[in-house]
């Protein structure tokens, strides 16, 4: 009895996944546990292994196809078994996102509505002149949906609808003017640092994997640059960052805290950790722990700004920035204020590692899951920076490197003490400068009087 290979559902918010690579061809023998294909959501990448042994009888989607979750992707069975019934449950070979095949190209063009901008009419010239969209770009819901699906940046498009509205045909036109890159070529470009050759970088050109050239060759060519298409994650980050700066009133306060206590504790922990008596609690874990304590005392910072109201959380759900190969990911420690220092440390390590391997649950990457975010560039020696808010959160704390700074010591003499830099970005729409500063003062006290109640410390 042949069995269907289903596109798994990775988290409640995931509706479709893109197949990035097939490891088996149609007709290949497959052993249980063999790698079948890789796929990615908009936030993470995954591998799918065969759950049964047999022959890969058919594949219904190819690399680059966007596949709804729980859809049948392929069939494994014995030689000669029928796959028709599985095909029926799959859509009419019409994946959500699919590049038009070569044969289709001319037909597509004919079907598409007229694309040249209409000539102005004497009777109603104002409605016919295509208008450049500005910040108040008007776009029809249908065109917007299409643009987002196909990754077309509509902010720069001239709308040809009534009053300069961007309508479906405007997006279709842009799509037509870009070269058609086959799914395989697109994948290869990403993986192998290849690029579209200059002679193919024009409308309607068909770019296959064989056409691709070394990116450096293009960069060194006549134009002297390479255009690298954004990955989905990069696009997501770009959107998020742009939106954050565009839509909020954010500013940053800097302060530093005496880090002697932290450093002393860290030394102790290191020893205990080597003996296996404690997890390896890092400085970042400790700052996180202090941050959580400070947030609990300033509930006005621990929440979301929602336009007409703020949502303040009873607990702290701490997001923290993780640098991965694919880009920045921000997983969240749910109910972080309920965890001990050790518990927090362990959980943060787990999540960071899941981000690195791409196995993170996408639901834990959503900005609205965290009540506050922490980002740490201390390891790079950064002294001060202005973190960007993870909207709708009200605040984000940047943790900087520890530097010795001159100070009056307890005995009245002057000397240098190690100080850790802290940069708080907050949304001025939700919080004023004084309360934000008071929060930073509390945080400084929590760090300077750090007391994690850990047995053995």
């Amino acid at each position, binding site marked *: 009895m042949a069995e269907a290979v289903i596109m798994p559902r990775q988290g409640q918010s995931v509706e479709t996944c893109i197949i990035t690579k097939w490891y088996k061809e149609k007709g290949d023998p497959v052993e249980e546990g063999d790698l079948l294909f890789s796929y990615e959501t908009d936030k993470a990448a995954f591998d799918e292994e065969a759950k049964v042994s047999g022959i890969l009888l058919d594949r219904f989607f190819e690399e680059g196809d966007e596949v709804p979750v729980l859809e049948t992707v392929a069939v494994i069975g014995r030689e000669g078994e029928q796959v028709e019934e599985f095909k029926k449950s799959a859509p009419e070979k019409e994946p959500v996102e699919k590049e038009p095949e070569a044969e289709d190209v001319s037909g597509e063009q004919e*079907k598409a*509505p*007229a694309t*040249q901008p*209409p*000539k102005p*009419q004497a*009777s*109603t010239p*104002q*409605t*016919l002149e295509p208008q450049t969209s500005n910040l108040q770009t008007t776009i*029809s*819901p*249908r*065109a917007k*949906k299409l643009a987002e699906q196909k990754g077309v940046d509509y902010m720069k498009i001239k709308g*040809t*609808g*009534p*009053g300069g*509205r961007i*309508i*479906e*045909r405007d997006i279709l036109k842009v799509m037509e003017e870009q070269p058609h890159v086959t799914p395989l070529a697109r994948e290869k470009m990403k993986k192998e640092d290849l690029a579209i050759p200059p002679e193919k970088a024009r409308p309607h050109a068909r770019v296959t994997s064989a056409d691709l050239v070394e990116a450096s060759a293009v960069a060194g060519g006549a134009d002297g640059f390479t255009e690298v298409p954004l990955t989905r994650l990069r696009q997501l980050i770009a959107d998020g960052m742009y939106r954050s700066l565009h839509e909020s009133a954010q500013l940053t306060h800097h302060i530093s805290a005496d880090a002697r206590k932290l450093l002393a504790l860290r030394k102790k922990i290191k020893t205990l950790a080597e003996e296996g008596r404690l997890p390896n609690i890092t400085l970042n874990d400790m700052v996180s722990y202090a941050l959580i304590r400070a947030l609990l005392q300033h509930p006005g910072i621990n929440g979301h700004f929602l336009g007409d109201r703020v949502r303040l959380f009873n607990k702290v759900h701490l997001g923290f920035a993780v640098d991965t190969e694919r880009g920045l990911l921000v997983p969240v420690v749910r109910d972080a204020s309920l965890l001990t220092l050790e518990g927090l440390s362990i959980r943060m390590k787990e999540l960071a590692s899941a981000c690195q391997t791409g196995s993170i649950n996408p639901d834990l990457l959503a900005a609205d899951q965290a009540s506050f975010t922490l980002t740490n560039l201390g390891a790079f020696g950064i002294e001060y920076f202005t973190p960007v808010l993870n909207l709708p959160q009200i605040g984000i704390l940047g943790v900087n490197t520890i530097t010795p700074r001159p100070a009056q010591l307890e005995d009245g003499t002057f000397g240098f003490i190690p100080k850790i830099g802290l940069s708080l970005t907050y949304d001025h729409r939700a919080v004023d400068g004084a309360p934000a500063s008071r929060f930073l003062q509390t945080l400084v006290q929590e760090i300077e009087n750090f007391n994690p109640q850990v047995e053995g410390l």
Partner: protein
Amino acid sequence: MPKQLFIDPLKVRKPGKITFGEIPVNQYQKTLADEKENYSKEDLLEIYRDMVIIREFETMLNKIKTTNEYEGISYNHPGPAHLSIGQEAAAVGMAWLLDPHDYIFGSHRSHGEILAKGMSAIRKLQDNELLDTMQNYMDGVTLKVVEKDTHSGTRELALDFLLYGTLSEIFAKKTGFNKGLGGSMHAFFPPFGIYPNNAIVGGSGDIGVGAALYKKVNRKPGIVVVNIGDASMGCGPVWEGISFATMDQFKTLWDEPYRGGLPLIFNFMNNQYGMGGQTAGETMGYGILARVGAGVNPEMMHAERIDGYNPLAVIDAFRRKKKILEEKKGPVLLDTLTYRYSGHSPSDASTYRTKEELEAWMEQDSLKFFERELVKNNITTEGEIETLRKGVIERLVKILKWAVDDQISPRMDLVSHPDEIGDLMFSNGSVDKMEDREPEVLLPLEENPRVQQLKRKERFGLDKNGKPFSKVKTFQLRDGIFEAIIDRFYKDPTLVAYGEENRDWGGAFAVYRGLTESLPYHRLFNTTISEGAIVGTAIGYAMCGGRVIPEIMYCDFLGRAGDEVFNQMPKWQAMSGQVLKMPVVLRVSVGSKYGAQHSQDWTSLVAHIPGLKVVFPATPYDAKGLMNAALQGTDPVVFFESQRIYDIGEYFHEGGVPEGYYEIPIGQPDIKRKGRDITILSVGATLYRALEAADILAEKYDLSAEVIDARSLVPFDYTLVLESVKKTGRIVITGDASERGSYLKDMAQSVADLAFDDLDAPPVVVGSRNWITPAHELEDFFFPQPHWIIDAIHERILPLPGHTVQMDLTNDKLLELKRRGV
């Protein structure tokens, strides 16, 4: 216009004069002693008891309304209670002789009549009939409450049932006679011959006539009594009802055994006030209401004023008038003089009458008068009377306790069952015939001349080359309607059709041509020019159990039947808790060519009213299928037909219009042309202009339009439209209704709401202008034209390369038009 009636100029031009006979006024002057042999002691005591029960029932409601308390039981009743304290003798006298199968219709002030008729029916029905009725009515929910108490017999139980069913209905309880959906002004109970009261003054004035028509046409036993107030004599529908009921044709043209007057009494419960307006002396001019009968027909409607303060005088009158009805000499007009002590409603301070007047009438109070007579004639004693009164109060206290208790008498639970009222709006029945007997027809269907003629017609309108056949060869839209209707006439014996010029003329637009040959007069006839009564009588006919097709010759005349179409036809299924069905198919012909008062598409007006199904077919195939569905159903359907396309052939349905029977479900739109770039949704005859627009779009702009014919307005399944919009992303909605506030706008709103993310532009409505309809020669500037649709697409949806607009559809212009209200 029947040819058998010769209008002889020599006769009608002769000089002469009209003489009137006498109209008796309060001629009954007998005493109780004179009547002793006509009534047993028990009869007289029951008459008295019935009056006491009504008086106390109304007094109880008055106390609850004004003090929130009766006999120590507190209750707040925010709803209406129009009381009839003072009118008891008139109510009991009216009902005393009526049989259960005699029907009464009432007004907003009918609690007394309901109870009187109910008690009369209880007296006449056998115990097993009573039990059967109570057990089966609404699955016995009302009975279950009153059954808990012990009763000395079935009649006692039935009396509690009547009082409780009425009171809990007034209090809007689910255990009431109409699930609490009728309330004080609409409570009724058909098994006892109590048909709807009506909160619209004079509302029963034409509906009751339809009930009498039903009894006559279907040869049912019994008479119909329409109890309406004296002030309703000023209402159009009452006059229309009287005109309809006294048409000569009943006595001149209808065949035996149908020949003769309607079994109907217009009983004006003349309490001498219409709210605060005094009818005699102030708001009317008749002096004595009975006078009106003299002007209506040579029989002067057997009009009479009777003393409604003496129950025996009223009974005497009903005995005599019933005989007149049995002799088929109806209808009868009674002016039953009475007086109400209570105000119009409990909030009425009676500023319009003096204390002296009130006291003078209380001095002659019917209960006091009858009580004195009973004691004087040794029928009863004052002691027994006191015992009776106490017993009535105890009974009402018991009933009231049940009715106010939300555990025993709950209201509809719309939290747990949010659709419970929605589910009652339509009965959605599928019934071949309303009664199982042989329909009366004059010849076999296949011998009908039009049926034979239709056999020779082209049932698909286009020839091999796609060219339309000549009109005379074509099976037309009017033929589709005809086939469905004649088919039903041969299936359903209760089906009748009437309206203006329906018989010999064949309907003003030849839809009924050939029907006259098949149908006797009583199944197809011409009426007075009374649109109100045409629809009102149909409502009464249907609620009694018949199926009926009334016709409004021009849509513009709908206003003349406003109350009937907006307040009566849509409401009664739900207001009765679906005790009543309303199989009325109201044919409405939408004109063109005839200017401002003969060319309006008012589909939107009826689509707005909850409780009506609304269809507007545009092809012969759809017209026949939808008419079949409408006639198979049990709901009121307003069936719009366009005069512009009565002669159109079938251009869409493969194989043409089937000869056999088929139904098109009401509510399903239909794709008339497939397309992928833009959707055009049309209502009614505008379909053909939408198709022309689609041709232009294809030829000049390389756009393929999908044209969907709405076919129905209510109900409407949006699935097809939404699928189309998902594909095209664009929609124009068009029809002949004036654009502002039209149903087209409602459809546009629904599409915007349900398909927002699929839309490439807002849904755009192309309706008629917000003007008067001008003369035919200027109509192209009023009704949507193909180029209007193109302009709207170009300006509001998808600018078309090379298109030159003819209309100004800019935002500024639209805003200006709205600002000016045109």
